[in-house]
């Protein structure tokens, strides 16, 4: 149960920061802004089968899960490690690298799922967006795990704010725009479709929009699960080999 102590600590600190609007809304604000601006601006003319609002609301749900699972975990670990050095408290505790990684990753999952839930509630309230299907719910959870583990790995790797910004600028932001959150991937140039289609946010978006367990949905879940497991394994190795 060592992992639970890490999870509890992360969630406790998050609860303490909830009053801090800059912290809470930094990763919620963009999906919300996109949701309203694009729904109003492009909704009537987007030409998406089934309507643009249902399409976009699920895309924003995916983005919210990604941003909150990844960014909040990466910031918590990296800032705790090189500014406040509070992360070192975990490293000098009797907890195993597996416990530390699992607790921190699950805290990332919780952050992502909570943020995703909030975005969906807003989309439902404002635009009567349809609820996520079962594959969609599975997609939310497994992509939160994938991005939580990625955030943990990056948090351990990044030695300063610039390194963290580099990952956000060159990996997270391009995924935000090219992984089918705002428009179908099929509208991208064919060479870019081949790359973008395999990225975790694209797989998550496909699951979010799947009505049932089709072969494609199952494949997406399998690939996302494998990616999450690989990133988790890398994180455990990084904690194990940690040295200042």
């Amino acid at each position, binding site marked *: 149960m060592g992992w639970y102590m890490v999870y509890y600590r992360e969630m406790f*600190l998050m609860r303490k920061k909830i009053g801090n609007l800059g912290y809470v809304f930094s990763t919620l604000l963009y999906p919300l802004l996109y949701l309203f601006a694009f729904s109003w601006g492009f909704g009537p003319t987007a030409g998406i089968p089934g309507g643009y609002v249902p399409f976009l609301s699920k895309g924003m749900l995916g983005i919210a899960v990604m941003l909150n699972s990844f960014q909040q975990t990466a910031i918590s670990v990296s800032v705790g490690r090189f500014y406040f050095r509070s992360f*070192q408290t975990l490293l000098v505790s009797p907890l195993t690298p597996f416990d530390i990684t699992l607790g921190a990753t699950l805290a990332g999952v919780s952050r992502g799922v909570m943020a995703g839930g909030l975005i969906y509630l807003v989309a439902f309230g404002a635009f009567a967006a349809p609820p996520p299907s079962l594959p969609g719910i599975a997609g939310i959870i497994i992509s939160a795990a994938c991005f939580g583990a990625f955030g943990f790995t990056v948090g351990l790797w990044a030695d300063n704010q610039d390194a963290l910004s580099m990952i956000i600028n060159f990996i997270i932001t391009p995924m935000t725009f090219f992984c089918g959150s705002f428009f179908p991937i099929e509208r991208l140039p064919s060479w870019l479709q081949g790359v973008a289609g395999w990225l975790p946010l694209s797989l998550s978006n496909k699951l979010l929009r799947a009505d049932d367990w089709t072969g494609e949905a199952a494949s997406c879940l399998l690939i996302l699960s494998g990616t999450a497991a690989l990133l988790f394994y890398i994180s455990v190795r990084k904690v194990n080999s940690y040295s200042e």
Partner: protein
Amino acid sequence: MNVLELAGISKAYGGKTVLDQVGFHVRQGEILGLLGPNGAGKTTLLKAVSGLTKCDRGTIKAFGLDFQDNKRQILKNTGIVPQENNLEREATVKEALLLYAKLFGVRRAKQEVGKLLERFALTEWQDVLVRHLSGGLARKTLIVRALLPDPPLLLLDEPSVGLDPDVRRGIWRLILELKEAGKTIVLTTHYMEEADFLCDRIALLKSGKLIFLDTPGRLKQKSGGATLEDAFIHLTGTGVL
């Protein structure tokens, strides 16, 4: 009985050696002071013993157990007070201590935290946010935090750095109380007066090498200096900037 045994510890960063074949042991119940000029390797050595830095060579044993193979068990019995205040800034004193107690699996954590807060006269500060603590109170809280699992070995990295003389004396009294309670303590310091007052033995490092290991009295005797500061300057050759 030796609580801590170091043999041949070496560490280099980017080709620059910061610890070079350092070895010594620390007996149960003693206070060993790690002294040396800036960059001598004191903090790196303490980080190696606490598992934050991996050595390139050498072995560390604590409580007769090899560190590599028994890291978790050793850390469970080691209280670490870092140089900086790394308490969770968003938490109150009591909350920060409870979080730590949970990480270390302390049983009846609330009672234990309450007892230590009372013993170290921190009860009136228990609901104050950590980020609002003065330097002295933060140091005291860090020491109390390290004591929560009741560890037999304590590693203190510059326990009184940046504190005014009165608070520093308070920290000294606290450290002596811990020694009297049977704790084994390894501390680093830049204050010669502190080392002279607290330490049973001194390990003097210079450029990553152990150049002296004995009592403060012997150190003064060896250098012919009247004070530990004279001896320190004589042996480490840091009289000029």
